[in-house]
């Protein structure tokens, strides 16, 4: 347009006298003014959008809702009826194991979960995850958390997974392996430390990440706690992280849980965790994550001292493929093992996986386990298991944290 005008301007000036020029300039200015008027009129019209929503519609306030499905096909060298009565000497007696995930040889449908998140108001966020398994519905987590506290503070209240350790707060579908680390299963069972209560966390205003938290929980988990006369569980932890360059990040934590067990005596659990993550590219990384837990459980006159660790290495090759290996071991087992007529040393497990994610929302995982932690029908037995799991997270599923 401009070019056209200047070109015509040029032609005109060469054809006519200078006197003409002034009038043309005037015309041009007039045209420019008109254009401006038109443009601002258009802008005004564009702004005036009318409200077309239904009068009392609240759709815009619906929470983010996600659906998580988890299932597997499994083969194992132990009969189902024997497997469900396994024991882990010193921790789980025969018949006491809870097996919510991947119990059966053949097909397992583990759960359908509905996860919801919403900002309640300027002061609170709310989150709930309803875990629907074939044997019933469970409120896995449901809590409110503050969003406007000063001084780097945060309070969470409701039913929650504790931030004790590294993996405790994570949901099964976001674990690196479908099975739980042996030490977590042994000390806390499949739900880990998950209870009603309140949590206070503080992030320090420092260059280096430093977070400290305290929690007061009901302590219903009767594997380690479970004195139900009143709330009995107190947890504290401190976590810190540093980066080395753009690509390597290190996160470490120390945790302590103090509660009362079913014998009304104290239980203390100490946890150490360390995660190293080296980014090899946008979609490729190497993650090494380890945790060590020790439990001192007082029982009338004696104290059971038990400890274990897991260490896992995950190689993410690209957006689609990853592989991993995990080593689990019970490192200390000073407890009453007189019920077991078998060798109870060297309780350990190896797990390997290959994973394929066609898209970030879906995941196929092939997992092989060689488990030497279990006593089945009175005998120590090597359990070999091959499992293919499918997990999907559809809908408005929020991002996972580090």
């Amino acid at each position, binding site marked *: 347009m401009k070019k056209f005008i200047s070109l015509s301007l040029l032609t005109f000036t060469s054809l006519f006298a200078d006197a003409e020029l002034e009038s043309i300039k005037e015309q041009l200015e007039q045209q420019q003014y008109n254009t401006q008027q038109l443009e601002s009129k258009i802008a005004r019209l564009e702004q005036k959008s009318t409200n077309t929503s239904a009068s009392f519609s609240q759709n815009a306030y619906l929470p983010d809702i996600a659906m998580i499905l988890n299932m597997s096909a499994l083969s194992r060298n132990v009969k189902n009826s024997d497997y469900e009565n396994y024991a882990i000497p010193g921790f789980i007696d025969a018949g006491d194991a809870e097996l919510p995930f991947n119990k059966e040889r053949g097909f397992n449908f583990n759960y359908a979960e509905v996860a919801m998140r919403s*900002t309640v108001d*300027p002061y609170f*966020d709310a989150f709930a995850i309803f875990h629907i398994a074939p044997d019933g519905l469970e409120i896995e987590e449901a809590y409110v*958390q503050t*969003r*406007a*506290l*000063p001084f*780097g*503070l*945060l309070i969470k209240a409701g039913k929650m997974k504790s931030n004790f350790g590294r993996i405790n707060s994570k949901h099964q579908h976001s674990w690196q392996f479908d099975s739980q680390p042996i030490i977590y299963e042994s000390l806390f069972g499949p739900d880990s430390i998950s209870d009603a209560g309140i949590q206070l*966390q*503080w*992030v*320090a*205003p*420092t*260059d*280096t*990440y*430093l*977070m400290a938290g305290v929690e007061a929980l009901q302590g219903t988990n009767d594997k380690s706690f479970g004195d139900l006369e009143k709330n009995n569980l107190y947890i504290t932890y401190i*976590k810190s*992280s*540093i*980066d080395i360059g*753009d690509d390597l*990040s290190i*996160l470490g934590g120390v945790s302590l849980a103090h509660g009362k067990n079913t014998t009304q005596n104290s239980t203390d659990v100490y946890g150490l965790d360390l995660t190293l*993550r080296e*980014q090899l*590219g*946008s*979609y490729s*990384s190497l993650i090494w994550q380890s945790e060590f837990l020790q439990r001192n459980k007082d029982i009338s006159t004696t104290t059971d001292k038990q400890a274990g660790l897991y260490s896992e290495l995950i190689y993410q090759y*690209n*957006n*689609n493929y990853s592989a991993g290996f995990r080593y689990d071991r019970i490192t200390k087992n000073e407890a009453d093992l007189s019920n077991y007529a078998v060798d109870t040393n060297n309780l350990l497990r190896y797990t390997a996986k290959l994973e394929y994610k066609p*898209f*970030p*929302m879906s995941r196929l995982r092939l997992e092989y386990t060689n488990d030497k932690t279990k006593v089945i029908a009175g005998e120590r037995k090597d359990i070999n298991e091959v499992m293919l799991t499918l997990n999907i997270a*559809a809908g408005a599923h*929020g*991002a*996972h*944290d*580090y």
Partner: protein
Amino acid sequence: MKKILLLTILLSNMLFASLNVNTTYQTLGEVAKKIGGELVKVNVLASAKYDPHFIVPKPSLLSKLRRADLLIINGAGLEIGWLPPLIRSANNAKIQVGAQGFLDMSHFIPMIDVPTSVSRGFGDVHAQGNPHYSTDPYMIPIMAKVIEAKLSALDISNEAYYKANLENFLKEWDAYLQKLNTKMLSCKDKKLIEYHELFNYFLSRYEYKSYGNIEPLPGIAPSSKHTLELIHTLKSNKIKIILQDVYHEKKSALFIAKKADASAIILPHEVGAVKEADTLENFYNTIAKRICR
């Protein structure tokens, strides 16, 4: 101890920047530096060498967010995969969504590629439109104006300073755009394909036409069938340019380039994504230099 800490914090506040600004990506950060000048300390959360959709939510980012007075995000879903959990755990009331110190830049940008229907069946589509608007140099003045308004609102005593910076910068940028436009006028070959729809804003600004993407759907890895179709498209339309970014695999682009006698060009998607793109002007200069033929 506490007193000393308080005193140092106070002193350092007086000596140095008064506002702590975090931006999710580098280009936003560069604009914030231009407007904020010496009064603002800018921290960029994501490294420009990584895919902006897939930033690792490292805990170290929490310590940055914890101390931010202002968080400026790109928006339009680009940060959805990494930022929300960080905002929730940084325990900073100032930068929560809806607070004074939270700024979603996409709310001020005329979006393109807004889908009429949204389903993950179409891959990783952003319902709000294409979020990669910072590849268009004409978006920079919009960002600058919005950032100026926000900084002035947060730090009203220095409003005049931010205003002056904005005016200077807009003048500079206008002059720069004239130069860039002249340069772009000399580009004759306007046909190309991309890996991901990363440069659409730049392409539509300078009247390029994209004939397709190496990824069959947003966020989906290339398939052989789709790649063969692309090679055919390139050949039959005599397309010689393949736009590649710094973070996706480069094998597919090189393969297509070889088969279709085209060339794969690595373009920066953000300030700092390649070495030469170290400033705002050099970012667009690098794109112009590499794409223009």
